[in-house]
């Protein structure tokens, strides 16, 4: 583990001094971007032409918003790497574990499934 090891008060103070806060102006800029992206999200939802691109685009837009809020509003950009790790570990566990969980539902082995009738095991709405 390469976590930063700081043990003297002096170093702590240095860290404090380094603490970097965006200005309100920057905050407002971020918020404007957030607003625009949200507008896009809603817009493409209604635009037929987007077609199959809808879901990837939505994912992308949500990701942008997510990252902006986390990095700027939550200061993760400027803060200790440890905090990033704590959060990203949680995110990663959640994403991986639940991707697998959902995969076991949506991609049940066809082999185990031939001729199954009346099963509502997965994707029942189709």
């Amino acid at each position, binding site marked *: 583990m390469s976590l930063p*090891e700081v043990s003297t008060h002096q170093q702590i103070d240095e860290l404090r001094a380094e603490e970097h806060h965006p200005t309100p102006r920057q905050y407002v800029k971020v918020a404007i971007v957030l607003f625009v992206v949200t507008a896009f999200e809603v817009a493409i939802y209604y635009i037929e032409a987007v077609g199959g691109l809808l879901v990837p685009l939505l994912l992308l837009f949500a990701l942008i918003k997510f990252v902006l809020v986390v990095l700027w509003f939550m200061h993760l950009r400027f803060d200790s790497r440890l905090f990033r790790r704590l959060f990203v570990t949680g995110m990663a566990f959640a994403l991986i574990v639940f991707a697998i969980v959902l995969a076991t539902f949506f991609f*049940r082995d066809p082999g*185990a499934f031939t001729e199954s009738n009346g099963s509502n095991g997965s994707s029942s709405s189709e």
Partner: protein
Amino acid sequence: MATAALTRRGMFARPRATTGWWSWVTTIDHKKIGILYGVTAFVFFLIGGVEALFIRLQLARPDGQVLDAELYNQFFTMHGITMIFMVVMPMGVALMNYFIPLMIGARDVAFPRLNAFSYWVFLFGGIFVYSSFFLGGAPDGGWFGYAPLSRTLPGHGMSYYSLGLQILGIASLAGAVNFIVTILNMRAPGMTFMRMPVFIWMSLVVSFLLLFAMPVLAVALFQLMFDRLFGGNFFNPAVGGDPLLWQHLFWVFGHPEVYILILPAMGIVSEVLPTFSRKPLFGYAAIVFAGVAIGFMGWGVWAHHMFAAGLGPVANTAFALTTMFIAVPTGIKIFNWVGTMWGGSIRLTTAFLFAVGFVAMFIIGGLSGVTHAFVPHDAQQTDTYYIVAHFHYVLFGGAIFGLFGGLYYWWPKVFGRLLGERLGKLHFWLYFIGFNLTFGPMHIVGLQGQPRRIYTYPENMGWDLWNLVMTVGAFVIAVGTLVFIVNAVLSRKRGEEAVADPWDGRTLEWTTPSPPPEYNFSDVPLVTHRDDFWHKKYARTPEGEPVRVFAGAEHADDDEHHHGIHLPSPSYFPALAALGMPFLGYGTVYKILPAMIVGAAILLLGLFGWGLEPSVEE
């Protein structure tokens, strides 16, 4: 003094008592809280053990008449829940509470009041679950409460389950956050990560496992609660709910959970073996790394509990492979423990015996665990007593042996008196023999087809003899437990007084007096080595032999210059806030809105009082 007593902040006068009943309710000293955790967990161990004895009595003979089906089902469910959530987890937390600050050179945990809150929530949660026995029946859906059975079982039992485990989970989560911050941020100067005792490392891994696993259980329990109490359809197959969702959520929590149960014990063993072998731990880095690896890999194996559920061959293969390979890091630990003893100068104390007993028995449980990973044969084993054998070998032979090793090892530090070695050894051998008599034959009857969770079996099944043996074994364990109790009582009365460092220990806790003062260390230690205390006590001859440089223990505290130490002051609020939990619980189970409101109000009141109260009384 008089002015201090008059200080009023918030609603109550600040609690002052340092002895007596109230001092325990209001304490936020990690050591006292550790003791509270330990005593509570031990009481639950007796209760869970008595339930096990009834289970064994019922099964001793075919067509047993000791319990009826209803009571039997409650007993095995409560036995499982108790042992896991109210015994092994909190007993680990007890030791973690007491010794994390002492071993990293801190004066307390990062959030002392949150720590107290965890304990009270745990206690109230346990009492809440147990009260169901007197309110119409305890949970009876098995400790993993498979839906849809758990949502349809009549009575309130499984509602208590869904809310009770929720409450216990809150305690665990709060504790986990606390320990993570404590370990990361409260270490004494010089205590780098690679100088931390392995027990600290394992506590850190456990805390992370709790941090990420408890919320998954929380969601599953909420879903069950909605299903049972508010007409939810999460697990109602009749309208498209999928029972496997529960299984996934439960075991995504459940498998990390089993490592939550075993890793503290592994940490203890990694402290006890070097101390009594007079050797540094063999392959420290590898043991630490293996512990972290187990923690990680533990997230990728959960569906091995669902091999018979019909996930299909691809998923089964994937989970079987991940499961098998968990043996590798675990093996590293086992080999390095043996390496630690190798070439040592071993003192066969009780603590050491329990630690070695842990290694010896855990190997058996681990190997049977690996045999479960062979899916086609697991289809035969699963839900038989072969599984019951596996998990008691890792849970009793593993966790419980390890925890008792820790108790014998650290007892003198906590209570200032040693536990008797003669009785201790008697205890160990009774446990060792009784344990193998009880759980060894389970492998055999399991492979002869005895399913688990059956309250009765007819006489022509060929299981009679072994079941009788198991029952006898369980009573041998019970006698062993009584021996321990006697030992503890005698030790309190006339046990040998403990010096600060009775075992010639290696880590910081042994530099403090036994028991340690409230502030732990009069001077915050400066750490220069792994096994720092040992290095302060011993220099090395050119041949590498240790020579004593000063009598470390006598260095004990001089009581002079601790006056400037500001410790957090006791507080009513953590216990008060926790008291809201059972109200919320009962209110929800019986859908009594006023009770829920009262519970929420108490909780909020506690939290506000807590928030407005300065943590140190000037």
